């Protein structure tokens, strides 16, 4: 079978409806008689709830109900299950669907107002009088473990949720023998995901109370179904969860939120269809955020600038709760040692509770954090030893001869972490070649003219294709068209297109002949979710396996129908043909046969249906890698940073659709640039968020973003049948580190040292003046 679509830049099957306004996002779904919900949220970062007086709100015209935790019963008061259990956490805290007794961050859901319109619900929400007793708020990560520090929750003795430790090798020995040891204090600040579609939940209970249909703007409809079936004590078959068109996810939409529980609970309670659509103001305080970490690190290097060892400690702010357990610090930990062949590593991460919005993965999860600190250390070594930043990396990287390379770290299941394939040095060289050689000359010339340009570099390795599995069913219909059903819903990645590309080649049809249905739990039995750059590997492999099986079955049956050797049969244009003859049978005819007719047995040894279902179980992780280079100019009078060029060389294994991979990379890089230069979620000392609109919280705009030049390497992974690796986060992971590296280089005449992001022009001016 020659690959005609796999690997080609196929235009997306998703687009025709989306470019003509016929997409159907959660708030677009027609739902006769639906009532609208506004959520009453805590204005306090930490407080006790004495009483809730909803009498005025209940009396407001158009209000159907005001519901508190007490109205919705025990399930509304019970803490929600942690999505990734964390046994190491002494006091595991998760939010309950509606707060009762106390609140622990500004924005925590306290009550639901149900009304005939959202506007009326908002009118009444302002009339719900909640009597709070404010408690001291913990918003100071650096001092969260100090004696006498305010505790973020009265259930806690200390703000320490737990400590992760990881590493390998003779750390003391390596640091003792090292020619050089350098110390850095580094930090990253939190931002949001800001999918352009906010979250939303709609629930329609069956009058009998035995069924409920739920629509959620989620990355994980199957997680929502699992959670709600358990919560409502219903069969999973009776809880149908649909992720409609979803307007971006970027991580936080993988969480099952308070509203995902509270809205269905309220819908059942009232016996009415309810809809809650998060508005942008709510998104700033009720959707999970990420990146606050404070690091103290040391790097050991030999006399040639080869990095030998890293050791350090991190304070990780996880906000008020652990909805996703400790997956973030675990991801930060497991992202060591990155592309570097270290002899020794010792890292400890203290996971801290604070009274801010809970943290869960935002594009890259803990990886951009670890990439940032490792790349800062690599740049430091280069600076101190007076060698190029490229050389430090060339000398310190895992070399191509070392693959598969066991880093010394342990995976979540305790097995050794082993990088599958790649050529990290070669990937760096491609970026350097693309970037051009005469940068130094241009930099000197620019400085002579009083202009300050700088080159940045950052490299990364990303674990992709995370366990446990995804699955797919392929079924040829009597009309010859193919149904492809899977649990791996998309939020813009283009799954329908790439899955159809994978299947089309096997079945000898075009992607347009395939209808892909994803994200409706009633159409496919099981799924995990579109997170952690995992779907191309897990979903893609399962589609491939199901397609191969379907193809084999078609050939087997066709060989009987056509009385030909299986070896002589080819699939082409929707037919199984005897090569070199005009004898053929269409896939539709075969499907009709295998659908069966009354009284007629199917051919011997053939199961019903020209179809197959396959699950791909990811038992070994695949590792993507890349090196980014960029050029910036800093206006030293204003501190303005302009990104002049951005080059990405990256390797995510075999490419299914290079156009879509480029799209993932570009979007990811720009998200990282936002983290480096623009996006800062500010809280005041009482835990009041200060940046709660798009005038105060700055997202990257077209006018500030560079073109992003991409060079692909393809080192197929031997760990899945299609050789692919994930690409969803590889753009974001190194981008902030790369931009910061470039700014530091541009400002080197001022001896400016950069140790955190985001950095504002005002910050840079201050550093220039101090320099």
């Amino acid at each position, binding site marked *: 079978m020659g690959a005609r679509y796999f690997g080609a830049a196929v235009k997306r099957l998703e687009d025709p409806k989306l470019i003509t306004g016929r997409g159907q996002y959660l708030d677009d779904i027609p739902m006769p008689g639906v009532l609208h919900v506004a959520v009453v949220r805590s*204005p*306090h970062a930490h407080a006790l709830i004495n009483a809730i007086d909803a009498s005025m709100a209940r009396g407001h015209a158009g209000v159907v109900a005001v519901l508190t935790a007490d109205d919705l019963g025990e399930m509304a008061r019970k803490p929600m299950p942690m999505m990734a259990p964390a046994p190491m956490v002494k006091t595991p805290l998760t939010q309950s669907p509606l707060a009762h007794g106390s609140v622990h961050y500004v924005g925590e859901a306290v009550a639901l107002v149900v009304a005939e319109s959202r506007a009326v619900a908002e009118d009444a929400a*302002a009339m719900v009088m909640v009597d709070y007793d404010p408690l001291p708020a913990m918003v100071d990560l650096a001092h969260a473990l100090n004696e006498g520090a305010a505790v973020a929750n009265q259930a806690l003795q200390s703000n320490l949720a737990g400590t992760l430790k990881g590493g390998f090798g003779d750390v003391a020995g390596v640091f003792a023998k090292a020619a050089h040891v350098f110390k850095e204090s580094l930090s990253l600040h939190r931002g949001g995901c800001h999918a352009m579609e906010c979250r939303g939940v709609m629930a329609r209970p069956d009058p009998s109370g035995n069924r409920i249909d739920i629509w959620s703007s989620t990355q994980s409809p199957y997680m929502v179904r699992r959670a709600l079936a358990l919560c409502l004590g219903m069969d999973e078959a009776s809880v149908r969860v649909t992720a409609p068109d979803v307007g971006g996810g970027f991580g936080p939409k993988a969480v099952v939120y308070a509203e995902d529980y509270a809205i269905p609970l309220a819908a059942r309670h009232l016996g009415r269809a309810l809809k809650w659509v998060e508005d942008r103001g709510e998104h700033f305080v009720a959707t999970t955020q990420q990146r606050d970490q404070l690091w103290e690190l040391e790097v050991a290097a030999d006399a040639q600038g080869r990095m030998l060892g890293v050791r350090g400690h991190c304070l990780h702010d996880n906000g008020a709760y652990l909805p996703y357990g400790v997956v973030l610090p675990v991801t930060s930990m497991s992202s060591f040692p990155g592309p570097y062949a270290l002899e020794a590593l010792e890292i400890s991460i203290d996971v801290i509770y604070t009274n801010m919005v809970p943290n869960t993965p935002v594009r890259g999860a803990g990886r951009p954090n670890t990439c940032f600190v490792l790349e800062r250390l690599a740049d430091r070594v280069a600076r101190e030893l007076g060698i190029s930043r490229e050389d430090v990396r060339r000398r310190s990287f895992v070399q191509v001869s070392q693959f598969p390379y066991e880093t010394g770290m342990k995976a979540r299941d305790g097995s050794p972490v082993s990088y599958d394939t790649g050529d990290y040095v070669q990937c760096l060289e491609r970026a350097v070649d693309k970037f051009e050689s005469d940068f130094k000359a241009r930099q000197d010339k620019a400085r002579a003219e009083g202009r300050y340009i700088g080159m940045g570099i950052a490299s990364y390795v990303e674990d992709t294709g995370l366990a446990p599995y995804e699955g797919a069913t392929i079924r040829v219909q009597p009309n010859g068209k193919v149904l492809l059903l899977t649990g791996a819903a998309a939020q813009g990645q283009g799954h329908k297109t790439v899955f159809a590309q994978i299947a089309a080649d096997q079945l000898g049809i075009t992607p347009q002949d395939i209808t892909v249905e994803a994200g409706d739990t009633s159409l496919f039995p099981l799924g995990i979710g579109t997170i952690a750059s995992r779907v191309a590997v897990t979903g893609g492999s399962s589609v491939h396996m199901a397609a191969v099986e379907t193809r084999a079955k078609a050939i087997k049956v066709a060989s009987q129908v056509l009385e030909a050797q299986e070896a002589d049969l080819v699939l082409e244009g929707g037919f199984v043909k005897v090569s070199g003859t005009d004898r053929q049978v269409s896939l539709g005819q075969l499907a009709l046969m295998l659908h069966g007719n009354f009284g007629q047995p199917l051919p011997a040894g053939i199961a019903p249906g020209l179809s197959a279902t396959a699950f791909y179980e990811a038992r070994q992780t695949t590792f993507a890698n890349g090196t980014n280079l960029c050029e910036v100019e800093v206006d030293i009078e204003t501190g303005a940073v302009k990104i002049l060029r951005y080059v990405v060389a990256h390797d995510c294994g075999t490419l299914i659709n290079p156009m879509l991979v480029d799209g993932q990379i570009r979007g990811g890089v720009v998200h990282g640039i936002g983290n480096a230069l623009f996006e800062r979620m500010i809280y005041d000392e009482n835990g009041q968020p200060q940046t709660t609109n798009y005038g105060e919280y700055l997202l990257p705009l077209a006018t500030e973003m560079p073109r992003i030049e991409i060079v692909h390497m393809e080192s197929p992974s031997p760990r899945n049948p299609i050789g692919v690796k994930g690409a969803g986060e590889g753009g974001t992971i190194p981008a902030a580190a790369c931009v910061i590296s470039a700014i530091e280089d541009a400002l080197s005449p001022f001896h400016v040292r950069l140790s955190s992001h985001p950095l504002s022009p005002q910050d840079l001016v201050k550093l220039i003046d101090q320099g």
Partner: protein
Amino acid sequence: MKIDVSFSVPVPPQQAWPLLLDVPRIVPCLPGASLTADLGDNRYKGQATVKVGPVQLTFAGEAQITDIDDAAHTARVIAKGADAKGRGSASATADFALVAEGEGTLITVVTDLQLVGAVAQYGRAQGLIKEIASQIVEQFAANLRSDILARSQEGVSASSAATDRPTGDADVASMAPTAPVAPIRELSAFALLWGVIKSLFSRKNQSGQ
């Protein structure tokens, strides 16, 4: 948010003290504030209106005078109120202390103001909130002084005026100050922010006169 102010009144502490505790009388001196009910044992209901640029906020709530030390001339006022439109709430603890200062009295007020909800999240306007709060207290001081002066000109001693402190659920109407006080409705953005700008321009004398 800590706001410290101090101001002088032209009467000695033993006269200023009861005057300061005469809530129905001093409330009208507080810009934008009005008393709606006396709940007894030093608890009062009232409301205060403040303008931040185009945004007008009206906080309705309760205040209580506690820790009254007639010997040391110190007292604490604990107040909390919520915006009528649900845009958040404010709570403040203000510690008053009087000390003799020549013929008059130096009154220091150490206030800890906490804003929550939308009012605390205006971002760009946040820098002005502290200035605005300081201005409110400073204008309060100015009004109080002019009130005292007005009375002393009438020959009415501040202390005697202060003796009939209403208790119980008194009729609010009867609580209007007996002497003419500069009429203040909601603290006008003009008066308020002119002060803000003044203090922005001369940060030295933050603590009023």
